[in-house]
């Protein structure tokens, strides 16, 4: 894609001669880095935007965002009872596995779907006020983290009701949420840019996500894959779910999960940074 789009951009440095007191042009990478940092420094801005998004979504409803918690609870209990019967699994271990799996999957899939709209939803803002582009990505991730937080309220209730002991491994949810948020940011920046330029990306992403849901051990345990277990071990989405789910239900994540997720995050961040540096200046023209 980098090669395809390269031709449509005239070099910004093209016509500048050496004379004159113009400061040297900052490199694209520096400008992109500055954008990411300036966006982060305005945490109050994207925090307020994210809160406003949630408030607008639930305006007029008594329970507000707790509707999410409630509907997730109903879904988890209903599915948990039926599927544990279908898969011949113990309800006491399966229901927490399923519930947390669905919650984390919902975070990943909603963030990815909304990532395509990162720059298109606030198009009038982008066209009118010069704020760092990264703010829009932080906003999408922040909004989804708030939803994730509401959904995770079920977890302590479940732990008590189902008598699941809290083990020391619980500390891993902190790095897990940080890494998931980092992944969310690069996915939003990358998909946000690509989807602003190519309008058929959003439906492609939506159907790809649906397919991935069936290939990823979200509602069924990875162990049931048997000789196909490697399919879970090479699936970065399984790793992403596993690192947050396992500590919450009191088990250690699968051995490959952290290394795989770390690699996935590093590659994603690196590639997205180059892409963002290259095409940042075009976003205002694309939306």
């Amino acid at each position, binding site marked *: 894609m980098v090669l*395809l789009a390269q031709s*449509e*951009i*005239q*070099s*910004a440095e*093209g*016509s*500048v001669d050496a004379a*004159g007191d*113009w*400061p040297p*042009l900052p490199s694209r990478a520096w400008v992109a880095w500055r954008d990411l940092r300036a966006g982060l420094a*305005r945490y*109050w*801005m994207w925090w*307020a*935007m994210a809160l*406003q998004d949630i408030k*607008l979504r639930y*305006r007029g409803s008594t329970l507000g965002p707790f509707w999410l918690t409630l509907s997730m609870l109903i879904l988890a209990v209903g599915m948990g009872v039926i599927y544990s019967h279908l898969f011949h699994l113990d309800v006491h271990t399966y229901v927490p596995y399923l519930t947390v799996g669905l919650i984390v999957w919902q975070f990943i899939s909603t963030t990815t779907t909304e990532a395509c709209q990162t720059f298109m939803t606030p198009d*009038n*803002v*982008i*066209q*009118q*006020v*010069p*704020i760092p582009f990264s703010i829009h990505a932080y906003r999408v991730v922040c909004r989804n983290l708030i939803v994730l937080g509401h959904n995770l309220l079920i977890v302590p209730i479940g732990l008590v009701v189902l008598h699941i002991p809290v083990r020391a491994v619980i500390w891993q949810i902190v790095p897990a949420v940080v890494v998931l948020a980092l992944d969310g940011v690069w996915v939003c920046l990358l998909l946000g840019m690509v989807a602003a*330029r*190519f*309008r*058929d*990306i959003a439906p*492609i992403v939506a159907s790809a996500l649906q397919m991935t849901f069936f290939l990823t051990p979200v509602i069924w345990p990875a162990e049931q894959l048997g000789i196909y277990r490697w399919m879970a071990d090479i699936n970065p989405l399984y790793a992403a779910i596993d690192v947050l789910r396992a500590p919450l239900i009191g088990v250690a994540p699968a051995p490959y999960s952290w290394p795989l997720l770390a690699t996935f995050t590093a590659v994603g961040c690196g590639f997205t940074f180059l892409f963002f540096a290259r095409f940042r*200046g*075009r976003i*205002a*023209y694309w939306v």
Partner: protein
Amino acid sequence: MAFVRLRGVSVEFPIYSGGSRSLKKLVLSKTTQGNVASDARDRVIVQALTDIDLEVGHGDRLALVGVNGAGKSTLLKVLAGIFEPTRGRMQAEGRVSALLTAQVGLNPEATGRENIITRGMYLDIHPRAMREHVDEIADFTELGYYIDMPVRTYSAGMIIRLCFAVATAFPPEILLMDEWILAGDSNFLQKARKRMETFVAGSSILVLASHAMPLLEEWCNRAVLLDGGRIVASGTVAEVAARHEAPVQPG
């Protein structure tokens, strides 16, 4: 000291028609040498600005004059740092406050007071700083009890008052305004002008795009005439106005 300068700035818009918005068509056109989807690259490029050289500095109140589509709004967007020039260079120093359209960051369901905070946020002003000035801003708007009503009940003129009051609550060093701001009533315009004089007298810069010649002559001390994306004349507002209103030379 606030300044903005442009050298050889050009802006080209690719207008993406249906086909070039599609990744599938773009890929197909590559793999089949363009036989299947020859319309994938049928982009129309609009040359919105060509070779703009401009320096605005200390105490300048610049009027951008030109017919519709001459490039006034595009130039404002370049000055605001929204459009990165496709060629040439732009350098700006100073806190920019841009009033390009009324709609940004206004939540029609929220009250005027709440929108003062939101609108300020988009202008990069922290809600805490904004809250301290809310009453002062509300006074300036002269909206009376409307300030506590939802913004959807406001008239266009009332929205203009609100937006202007927020944008100038913290004296910007560079204030960019598109012509819609001049749609306010004469009482408001007088008040707005007075407020701007207080900070433009300092080291601040005002750039205003409009057709309303008498108003521009009153508000501005410099003008450039844009035509087809190029600067075709510059000088005092009166000189540029004369040129603008002169019959078009053949050729």
